């Protein structure tokens, strides 16, 4: 008896001491944030370090769209590009809400607008050089922007500059319109000043200044469509080797001056990027430590998802950020009986939100159930739910039936639903809605269409939609940047809809919303502008022409050897500028 008591006391004491020691160690580690934990890189820096040196290995499951800053249009590319290019302003490489702020990069400060927000002035920092030692001047930025407007040579890039700049009529870019005076659009009064003149007011021009299209390009070394073979660097790293479609590598740029660059630490010596790597292989290599970063940032594949979520050690190496992307369903008021707002509301009430989420891959890999158009990280986001789906989020059948009675279809109605055939998640969404709406008598016939022509010929083509009664259509939109304009302008402005098709806006035709958009563009006060975005969101939702599905999330795995790992909220994945190697 006594011996057992002594043993018990001894054991419990040991246990207590052990736990206390562990707790103490853990506290120390969490203040340092070096202990792997789920979401350890969200809102804070994981494994902070100032150690220089080493090589970071990236892999891309496909091809890079292009390394040319004038044309690249993928978020991960914009994130990475800051290693070899400096745009006028950039998103702050910081965790949490700080990462949503714009800070000056090549420019000395954010843009200075005129009173009417039609003229924007930036001063270029002194002492910034290209990789060959030639100084970067305002002319190089002007040239970079102008060449990006040549859509015959660069058809894939963003089109904001040609839309907003006051370019001379018929201007086709510097290759075809050589010698044409473009001072009406961009002026360079001296080597360090650049002035942009717009056709219409735009209060958010700093977001345009963030675009890679403002990364300076030396005219003497510009080879148009071939420039991507060797982009001349203005950043801390330059291209060592570039085998298009296979791989490329970056090494230190000897002419980069830390004194001109408060935003970058430039810790690693080298970057290696492999392209067209098998997606499952990427996940296996990340997990084993053979690879540092899955550059595309859309998360692990289904095969690895189960492993990562199921194994506590692996889950501790993962982060689950939300991206500024909404997966949703358009409800087309041009297709009867959806011209009646109550019929549309019936769909919104009857939809099974949980089913939508499951169709997209669940809580971690799919996303968060959405009740608004703007995802939470967009400034101006207001949380509201105009069509509560019941406590279990599976839909409010009673309210849906009420709405059906109000619209004169008490027993439901029939309509067609379009989705993109190559996307299993959209097929699953369509099937989920088909089942959910059947509960109130709304019969959906599902119609798959090829994604390449989805917007130009089918769901996004108004005459086709009307003739073929496509009442519902799966849709999705990711903001070019985390701002109301970037998120909303292409999907709720009725003026982007073309009768010839091609627009992502399938269903929103609200004149009041168009006016509110214009109002926001001209509003120079940030707080007021953000409030308008929120109001637009609500107004569109009141019209019941969009059924929000989910705010996309991705399950990312941290590389084992990385330091300074954090999610940059502007991109929704790791900040590639800050990373170092242990």
């Amino acid at each position, binding site marked *: 008896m006594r011996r057992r008591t002594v043993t018990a006391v001894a054991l419990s004491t040991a246990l207590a001491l052990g736990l206390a020691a562990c707790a103490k160690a853990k506290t120390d580690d969490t203040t340092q944030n070096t202990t792997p934990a789920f979401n350890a890189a969200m809102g804070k820096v994981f494994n902070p370090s100032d150690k220089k040196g080493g090589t970071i290995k990236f892999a891309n499951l496909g091809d890079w769209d292009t390394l040319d800053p004038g044309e690249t249009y993928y978020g991960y590319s914009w994130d990475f590009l800051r290693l070899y290019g400096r745009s006028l302003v950039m998103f702050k490489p910081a965790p949490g809400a700080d990462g949503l702020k714009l800070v000056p990069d090549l420019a000395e400060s954010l843009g200075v607008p005129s009173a009417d927000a039609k003229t924007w002035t930036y001063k270029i920092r002194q002492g910034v050089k290209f990789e060959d030692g030639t100084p970067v001047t305002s002319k190089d930025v002007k040239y970079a922007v102008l060449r990006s407007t040549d859509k015959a040579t660069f058809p894939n890039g963003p089109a904001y500059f040609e839309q907003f700049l006051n370019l001379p009529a018929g201007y086709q870019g510097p290759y075809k319109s050589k010698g044409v005076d473009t001072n009406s659009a961009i002026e360079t009064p001296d080597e360090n000043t650049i002035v942009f003149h717009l056709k219409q007011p735009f209060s958010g021009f700093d977001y345009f200044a963030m675009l890679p299209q403002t990364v300076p390009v030396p005219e003497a070394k510009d080879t148009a469509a*071939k420039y991507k073979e060797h982009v001349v660097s203005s950043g801390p790293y330059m291209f060592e080797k570039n085998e298009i479609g296979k791989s490329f590598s970056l090494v230190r740029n000897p002419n980069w001056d830390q004194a001109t660059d408060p935003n970058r630490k430039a810790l690693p010596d080298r970057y290696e990027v492999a392209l067209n790597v098998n997606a499952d292989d990427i996940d296996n*290599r990340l997990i084993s430590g053979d690879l540092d970063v899955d550059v595309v940032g859309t998360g692990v594949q289904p095969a690895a998802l189960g492993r990562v979520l199921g194994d506590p050690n692996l889950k501790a190496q993962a982060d689950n950020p939300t991206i500024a992307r909404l997966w949703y369903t358009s409800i087309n008021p041009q297709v009867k009986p959806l011209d009646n707002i109550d019929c549309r509301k019936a769909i919104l009430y009857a939809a099974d939100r949980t089913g939508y989420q499951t169709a997209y891959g669940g809580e971690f890999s799919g996303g968060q159930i959405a009740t608004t158009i703007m995802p939470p990280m967009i400034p101006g986001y207001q949380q509201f739910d105009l069509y509560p789906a019941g406590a279990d989020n599976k839909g409010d059948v009673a309210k849906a039936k009420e709405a059906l009675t109000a619209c004169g279809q008490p027993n439901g109605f029939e309509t067609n639903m379009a989705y993109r055939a190559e996307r299993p998640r959209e097929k699953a969404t369509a099937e989920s809605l088909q089942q959910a709406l059947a509960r109130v008598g709304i019969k959906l016939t599902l119609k798959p269409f090829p994604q390449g022509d989805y917007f130009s010929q089918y769901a996004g083509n108004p005459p086709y939609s009307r003739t073929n009664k496509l009442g519902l259509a799966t849709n999705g939109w990711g903001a070019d940047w985390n701002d109301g304009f970037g998120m909303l302008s292409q999907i709720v402005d009725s003026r982007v809809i073309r009768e010839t098709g091609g627009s992502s806006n399938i269903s929103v035709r609200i004149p009041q919303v168009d006016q509110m958009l214009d109002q926001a563009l001209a509003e120079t006060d940030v707080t007021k502008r953000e409030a308008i975005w929120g109001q637009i969101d609500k107004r569109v939702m009141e019209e019941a022409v969009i059924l929000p599905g989910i705010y996309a999330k991705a399950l990312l795995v941290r590389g084992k050897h990385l330091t300074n790992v954090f999610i940059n909220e502007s991109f929704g994945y790791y900040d590639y500028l800050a990373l170092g190697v242990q």
Partner: protein
Amino acid sequence: MVTYIIRRLLATVVLLFFVSAVTFSIFFVVPRIAGSTPETLATRYVGRAATEETVKLTAERLGFYDPVVVQYGRWVKGVVAGTDYDYGAGVEHCPAPCLGYSFITRQPVWPDLLDRMTVTLSLAIGASIIWLLAGVATGVLSALRRGSVFDRAAMGIALGGVSLPIFFTGIVSLVIFSYGLGITAPGGSFTPFTENPAEWAYDLILPWITLAFLFAAAYARLTRAGMLETMNEDYIRTARAKGLKERTVITRHGLRAALTPILTIFGLDVGLLVGGAVLTESTFSLPGLGKYAIDAILNNDLPKVMGVTILAAFFIVIANLIVDLLYAVIDPRVRLG
């Protein structure tokens, strides 16, 4: 023999043009039947911010407004005489054979194909030697030890090899041998033979063995069946009666006769493989022709699709020619022509 070869090569050229014409038509005719216009075709090669203007400019640049026959003629001229390519800031001359420039990457196709071909050839040749030797040896031994433990085990493993898909065995092998044990190279590794032969072999050993496993199985079973049939023939008994060494009986008399069907299959397999070992290259992330073909098809990149199809057809035809020539060598009864 020489006339025969020349005749076959001429026929090959005609065949390749025929294949190119068919591929070209499929690319353009099928969408047209579905109602495509030059603009809707061009939307595939522009970004999401593209205006109608951009789409039209792209359709013009890619030549979609010309009749299909004219577009094909332009392509043929490029192959035969080379062509000039406007890359925006200037014009580049693309010498013959110019298989055009990719619609997506704007890179010339022919240099890409040559580059990728070395990878696929490395993969195919290495794997084919391994599977031929391993498969035939296993098959011969199994046939000679029919019904034994070795025979049953070998045929069982062969069944596994034939049944397991490469995208399974490949990924699992990588996890075990490359990332677990660290004895083989990770996915995506390729060093050209001319740069470092030892590194070249080290990078490819796992894809070789995984791919060979798939084929060796079939060859083992084929060889076993062929050997069993041949070893029961009368002339084998005669050869033994003559006092020849058993090894000579098996190889010179038994295997040689059983080799003919194996050779046929081998030629076809290698020809197809050189045209693009799609699954292996995708699984091991090797930048070969197969991966190139898949990307080209998924991106509707016509010049790449044309290039890869022509090359694949060429390899299959040449492989068949070589097989036919080898028949004449192996089997004296065969007369060419």
